[in-house]
């Protein structure tokens, strides 16, 4: 699995054109930010974590619970 992650990183970083500061206006959009809605992301991860048998890699950190 580590090799797969490294290969993915190398694929992402190879052969891409530079993106200058004045070209990043679109990237600054709220719609492009994965961290812009912490309450919604946490609520969704919490709801799904209490109803499905898998969890993790969502980027959200929540407290433990005895959710049924």
């Amino acid at each position: 699995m580590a090799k797969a992650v490294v290969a993915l990183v190398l694929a992402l970083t190879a052969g891409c054109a530079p993106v200058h500061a004045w070209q990043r206006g679109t990237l600054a959009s709220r719609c492009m930010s994965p961290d812009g809605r912490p309450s919604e992301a946490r609520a969704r991860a919490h709801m799904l974590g209490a109803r499905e048998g898998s969890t993790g890699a969502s980027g959200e950190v929540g407290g433990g619970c005895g959710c049924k």
Partner: protein
Amino acid sequence: MRLQVALALCLFTLNARADSRATAFVSAYSDDDDLTVVSPEVLLRQELSPAVDVEASWEADIISAASVDVMTAASPRGFEETRHGLTAGVIWKPEPEISFGVKYLPTWENDYSSHGLALRTGYEWLERRLEQRLDLRASFDRVGRAGEPESEWRDLQVVALGPSLSYVLDRWTVASVAYELQAQSGFQASPYRFVPIDWPSATTVSAPERHPEWRVRHALAAGVRHALSRRWFASGGYRFYRDSWKVSSHTADAGLQYATARERAIVGVDVRGYYQGEASFYQERYAAAAGTLPTYRSRDKMLSESWSLLAGLRGEVGLGPVAFAEDVRVMARTEIYDQHFLTFEPLDGRRAFIFQLGATAEY
């Protein structure tokens, strides 16, 4: 060149968001298995200096349940309870590209308590095109039954490590990959659930649920966000999960958003599909061999084979400056969640409706 720099500065100013914010949020879940959960949350993030932010939040789950496995196990009338959770944290940015965060997360309810600690480091490099993060989390939980003295509750420890990368592919596209390794040690069954077991003498007995006390969980996720134009944005992701109980799952999601000029309003739609296989020791119906109870036995539908679909609509409006706030944004979201259990005898599936409402003041 000067015009380009000036335009870039303007764009960053227009899109720059204040570091201090206050959020009030509520989520309401209700399904046709008679489970209702209302979850309010208040979150405050305050910039103390350009390098230091502090964060605090309170959240609760107000639960009213008469679901099929609750009715057959815990109480003939179902139950109601409230879970509270707090967070308190500090984020330190010694340099614009470097960040460190620490957070304490206690939660408690009448049959469960948890003390969690979360650490996060972040570093942006390659001219801030590549962001790497490392999350470390540990929690020390106590699991018991309502009304039981806490001295009789059992321990559960959870440790998780999660590296992630986010990369700017081009001026319209950001890709990300995340991995999480989680280890759980301790009591991981439900103290309320009993498992029916067919005995050789053609009778059925009920035995307390028993799960292994060790579980190692792996999750690997990849996602991409792409600006189709200045107003339209698409996203997609996939996650693979596997653990030492042999539960494996596949999750795929996709979304589409539209933003008006200056992002005064944003609307979006997203869908998510999920499938999981059952745990190695899970059986829809247990039979005792030679009069001996199965070592591990479960009545937990979360460990059965299942699939689900989640679809949602979201809207967000920026109200602009209000009182002390530079910008106030209000959001609303509605979702439908359809879950199907393929090997859970008491319940074929459930359908839930979820509604969320929130407001954030940035100042």
